[in-house]
């Protein structure tokens, strides 16, 4: 019963590492329960969790082959020329 009551007294500080960790491992049953109960009553932690999800989606997208995010970055023209010349010499 004490354990049961203690999950309602969790502070943000106690729960907050779990919000990130659930993205990297499967939490224990007690961890999942603590997180779930806290998120139901704490709007700030719920917002924080959504932010980490948005961050994850953004990162995945940024890493895609056809990501348009850093279009301004281009390979150094000198390096391009060097590679082009090498290829033409070889074929």
């Amino acid at each position, binding site marked *: 019963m004490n354990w049961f009551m203690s999950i309602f007294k969790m502070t*943000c500080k106690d729960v907050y*590492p779990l919000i990130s960790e659930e993205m990297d491992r499967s939490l224990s049953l007690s961890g999942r329960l603590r997180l779930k109960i806290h998120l139901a009553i704490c709007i700030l932690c719920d917002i924080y969790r959504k932010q980490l999800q948005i961050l*994850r989606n953004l990162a*995945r997208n940024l*890493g895609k*082959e056809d990501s348009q995010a850093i279009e301004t*970055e281009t390979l150094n023209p000198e390096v391009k020329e060097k*590679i082009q010349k*090498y290829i033409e010499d070889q074929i």
Partner: protein
Amino acid sequence: MSEETLEPEKWVEKYADMLFRYTLVRVKDPDVAEELVQSTFFAALKSQHTFAGKSTEKTWLFGILKHKTMDHFRNAKKNINLDISDSDTDRIQFTTSGHMTPSPNNWNMDPEKATQNKELAEVLAKCLNGLSEKFHRLFVLKEIEGLSSEQICKEFDVKPTNLWVILHRARNQLKLCLESNWINKE
């Protein structure tokens, strides 16, 4: 449907910038990215006979680059200390009354739709560059390369608890960076 063929003389024009950007997001250092792209083209040229025409030329080239990038990460593991240290501070703190500070503000954004926001992706690219080598490497392996925590710990000799703590702090730093560079300007 005609089979795909390789046209090496057009590779640089068609794919060099695309491959470079893909690499730059992952390795941070433009010189390293340059080297990886160059060695990808050279390796591709040598192994043209392995191209079966079943994938596109682009997919094939990216495949070679992905191998090169992972090799680079494995070789570089000696040079980056991935253990947690005192300087790896958490940018988010808690007040004595137990509240998160700075307090998270509501981004008012659908997690799925956020990915369509190009400006936000650009800000994230800049924020990623601000991470330390250690935070950058582990965040990239987990969230951009998409390796599992188990794989990262095994291949890069990181203790699971250290990995979780570092990823948490890296996410916090990125989140705060997004807030100060984009979200708050809305």
